């Protein structure tokens, strides 16, 4: 979906700000969010990485830009825990008030009233699925990405839509995030690293000598 998360090529975010001597976790609450992820996965609220990434994409867009990485995780986790019926936002609000906070402040989560039913039985621990069917493209082939937006979760960024590149690497089959995120099955597809010349993506403004590579699923691609 064309959400706030799809940042590639966007203007206006200013210089890259680096911290000196950045700690792994800035505060204990960031590590708590990490721990909550483990609990939410074990409890079945987070079924797979694709579903979780989509939950993060669905949080409040202003929060997406201002709450930081662990704030985004927190919003995604609250969304999925509420959708799974394990906690309610009223429960969380009451607990925040008991801790001395404002229960209405800092809510990034946007649980859906009718969430996708994600019945996920992973066939393997990871996302690689070797495929019998041969890949449609070979390394060196030209390929064009689909030009139109994809609703729901997808891993085709907007900046790479409708452009012609070439197949740089071929990766066999992988779980297809666009269906797996929504509980519509793994539907593994061939995955390719597709290379695009800077001029193809950015026109005359492109910096010299630039090639951008993306890992794209076969159904995002058409022949040249």
């Amino acid at each position, binding site marked *: 979906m064309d959400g706030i*998360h*799809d940042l*590639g*090529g*966007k203007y*206006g*975010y200013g210089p*890259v*700000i*680096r*911290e000196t001597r950045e700690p*792994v976790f800035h*505060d*204990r*609450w*960031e*590590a*708590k969010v*990490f*721990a*909550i992820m483990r*609990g*939410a996965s074990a*409890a079945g609220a987070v079924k797979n990485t694709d579903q979780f990434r989509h939950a993060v994409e669905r949080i409040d867009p202003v929060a997406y*830009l201002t709450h*930081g*990485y662990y*704030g985004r995780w*927190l919003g995604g986790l609250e969304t999925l825990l509420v959708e799974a019926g*394990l*906690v309610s936002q009223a429960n*969380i609000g009451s*607990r*925040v008030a008991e801790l001395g*906070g*404002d229960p209405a402040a*800092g809510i990034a989560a946007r649980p859906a009233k009718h969430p996708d039913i994600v019945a996920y039985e992973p066939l393997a621990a*990871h996302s*690689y699925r070797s495929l019998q069917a041969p890949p449609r493209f070979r390394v060196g082939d030209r390929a064009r990405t689909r030009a139109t937006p994809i609703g729901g979760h997808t*891993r*085709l*960024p907007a*900046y790479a839509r409708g452009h012609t590149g070439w197949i740089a*690497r071929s*990766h066999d089959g*992988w*779980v297809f*995030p666009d269906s797996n995120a929504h509980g519509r099955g793994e539907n593994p597809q061939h*995955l390719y*690293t597709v290379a695009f010349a800077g001029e193809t*993506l950015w026109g005359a403004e492109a910096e*010299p*000598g*630039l*090639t*951008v*590579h*993306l*890992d794209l*699923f076969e159904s995002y691609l058409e022949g040249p």
Partner: protein
Amino acid sequence: MTETTPQALRAEALESLLVEKGLLDPATVDQVIVQYNERVGPMNGARVVAKAWTNPEFRKRLLADGTSAIAELGLEGAQTDKLVVVENTSDVHNLVVCTLCSCYPWAVLGLPPKWYKDPAYRSRVVREPRKVLEEFGVALAGDKAIRVWDSSAEVRYMVLPEPPADGRGLSEAALAERVTRDSMIGVEIL
């Protein structure tokens, strides 16, 4: 340090509710802190790079199949179904990003720095990598090719930097000390 920002309080609230329901072991947070401070971090990638610099056969294997090569060093696990290592040379500079979220090769680099996950880096580095590199203090020759790797699926990327000019003759362990996290993301030249 304990913050009382709205996010900190909401995380605290959610954690305590899950602990009460028996869905989360309260010891998990300390396990996470130890794991990512002490065991899973850029020191792992530094070992891989130093070995590649000193062992041409390993370097060949690493560039051909990063996943198997890092397994030789006992490095496996979270977030790395497939690792692809891309090599910086006198002609080519590589940079890693994830524009859609913040995918990063945890097994070799640990958790990403804040700037890697922030909108500025994610939005700009696919479009104007030379300008971003200048902000990092890296000036690339005008005729050097730049390859940006946007980690849009489960393949993870790590840069094999060029060795430091004054590193000749150093041991593998001494070289590992010279490898920085940023050089393995591609925003620093050693």
